């Protein structure tokens, strides 16, 4: 009996050693040389494997980063600048800082603003719904409310508000990976700069219909009137296809557009104080009056200067200048 046990242990030990040797030899012989920096980079990555960078996961990102000659085309939105600096220091590259971004839902078609005209009892999927028709309301562009974006978010940053029927972004959790922007068949969700202390200004509507049609479908629609673009001092607002868009790289957060918007389609978020529309409107009016007065004065001065020499040309000039000032 004892002998059997000893024999078994001995055989298994010898066998184990033998196999270990073979494994050791195979591991040496067929070793794949890999840049050790890939592991290092992967270690500093967030490890979410969300694909927000455009690669299959964090390791794929690290692999590409190590092979790349610079990091211009690579950015980890989840880790942000912090991670990118670490990656750059490992690889000896330099990266420019990028402003942190956040997902913004550009639709304010709540149940109250946008009355339902159809009832949908099909599959609760925006993609399926979008393939069937334009939506339950008169608006062909707005949120369909089935929550494909919520399902796409790996970070739990999106949820459907049962009262408004619209998705809500949790700014703390949002990593700006962009999965929701791809999941939305209506392309409502956009990644925008988070802004200083989270303050930002955006047009919460993507309706390309003409004003009356858009307004009929939704009380909070952008009607493309262009008042905001005219008011904006920084050239940040453009109106194309009957819908305004605020360029967040140019916006100075003066909130004048928000004050003049007749439908309330422009939203300002995370501002410390509530917007005093009348005060802002007064400010704009004062500025306009001042500009008009200045233009008038300039015109008169020009008139006085020009009169003795060229009376015909001087008669035209003030009219021109006035137009510029008013426009």
């Amino acid at each position, binding site marked *: 009996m004892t002998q059997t046990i000893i024999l078994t242990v001995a055989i298994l030990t010898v066998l184990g050693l033998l196999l270990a040797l073979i494994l050791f030899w195979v591991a040496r012989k067929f070793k794949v040389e890999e840049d050790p920096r890939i592991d290092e980079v992967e270690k500093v990555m967030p490890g979410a494997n969300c694909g927000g960078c455009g690669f299959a996961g964090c390791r794929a990102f690290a692999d590409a980063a190590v092979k790349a000659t610079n990091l211009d085309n690579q950015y980890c939105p989840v880790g942000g600048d912090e991670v990118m600096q670490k990656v750059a220091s490992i690889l000896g590259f330099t990266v420019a800082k990028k402003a942190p971004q956040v997902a913004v839902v550009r639709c304010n078609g709540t149940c109250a603003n946008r009355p339902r005209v159809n009832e949908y009892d099909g599959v609760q999927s925006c*993609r399926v719904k979008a*393939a069937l028709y334009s939506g339950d309301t008169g608006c062909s562009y707005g949120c369909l409310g089935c929550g494909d974006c919520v399902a796409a978010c790996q970070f739990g940053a999106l949820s459907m508000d049962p009262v408004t029927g619209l998705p809500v972004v949790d700014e703390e959790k949002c990593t700006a990976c962009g999965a929701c922007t791809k999941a939305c068949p209506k392309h409502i969700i956009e990644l925008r700069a988070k802004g200083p202390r989270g303050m930002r200004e955006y047009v919460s509507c993507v309706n390309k219909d003409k004003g009356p049609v858009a307004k009929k479908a939704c009380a909070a629609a952008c009607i493309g009137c262009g008042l905001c673009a005219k008011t904006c001092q920084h050239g940040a607002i453009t109106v194309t296809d009957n819908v305004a868009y605020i360029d967040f790289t140019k916006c100075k957060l003066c909130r004048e557009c928000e004050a003049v918007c007749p439908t309330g389609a422009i939203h300002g978020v995370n501002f410390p104080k509530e917007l005093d529309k009348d005060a802002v409107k007064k400010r704009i009016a004062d500025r306009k009056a001042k500009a008009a007065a200045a233009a008038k004065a300039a015109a008169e001065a020009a008139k006085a200067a020009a009169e003795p020499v060229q009376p015909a040309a001087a008669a035209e000039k003030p009219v021109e200048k006035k137009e510029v000032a008013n426009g």
Partner: protein
Amino acid sequence: MGKLTFSMGGVHPHDSKYARGCAIEELPLPQTVYVSMAQHLGAPAKPVVAVGDTVKVGQVLAEPGGFISAFIHSPASGTVKSIAPRKDLAGNPVMHIEIAVEGDEWDPAIDRSADLVTAIPEDRTAILDRIKACGVVGLGGATFPAHVKLNPAPGKVAECLIINGAECEPFLTSDYRIMIERPKEIVIGAAIMQKVLGGCKCVIGIEENKPEAIASMGAAVAELAYPGITVQTLKKRYPQGGEKQLIDAVMKRQVKSGGLPIDVGAVVQNVATSLAVYEAVQKNKPLITNVLTITGDKMPVEKQHNYLFRIGVPLSFVVEQAGGVPDFAAKMISGGPMMGKAISNLDAATVKGSSSVLYLSEAMTRREPETNCIRCGKCADACPMGLEPFLLNRLYKTADLEALEKNAAQDCIECGCCLYSCPAHIPLLDNIRQAKGQVMGVIRARAAAARAAAEAAKK
């Protein structure tokens, strides 16, 4: 020959053709018509009229916007009020020409008499040109431009022209009514298409639940005595009217994955298309009218209608003329209950392919809650294309495009048999339709890349 049918899958919904006894009535003209620029498969048409122009009935409003596209003609006389995007049936903006109707003045070139013209023109190209110029598209549902289909690519020979009188969708009776009321025109239209295709044989396929239509078409074929035209009775089974199913039923040939009917020597056209071809070639009348059925599951027969309507009349006008939306209606569908689209915008205009306004009651339309797949395989038994819907559904959920293509999601004809037969009420069709779209996108992208590579190699 006995009764034929296709070899695989299919379901047997109740045919519900309640409006079969309603003779075709002509719908009056409303104050305004809206003519869509995208009422055919392929590129949208390009308007050739301007705002303020006066147009006559039958005048060209728009010309084809590509190879697969069609002419569009004015359904009414009056003034062009606007050319602007307007919401279609599904609520998506599409370019429409708005015409304020004034009187009913027809283009004098159109022969409006009821005389039957039986002599078929000799020149094949002239016939094709007429069909193209009159904007004839397939009226069986897909609205594929007829002149393209009737002009097979070089090297492909049509052996059999199949005239589709199956009308397998429940409720619809427009094809049935024209087969009863205008059989001779349909037969002449078929003979014209036969001529265009080089004198192949022609089979008119009609399902057995329409014996009057079979008798009427048979009599017309016998009386006109064109060579090689026969009427074939088909078993009642959905989707018999599907192009590939009909070819299978009549010719016992199967179109392979990614192939076209002409690959097996078949050309399929609907009876309504045949009628449109007759009117285009023999009467010079463009496709500006079609027949649609107004019906419903709880509708008294006297309120149901088969209307000859001008293409472009708003649906709301059609509904109003038929006495408004009935109380029981929970859902309105344009087309049949199996493949039709729900009408989400009643202001939408009718298009060339409009075949019905169907009112369904709550009980008929309500979806049961989805439960788990029990692997019964009913969907696979029902699929007329031999696909495995349960598998495609699962692959769609994991977004495995490669496997979806391997399992031929792109061959789905969206007939809805899988959804109809599923005891677990799984929205198979909804998901497979998505999958099909994605796979088609991949296939198209690959083809485009291959073309680009070939171009580059040439240079």
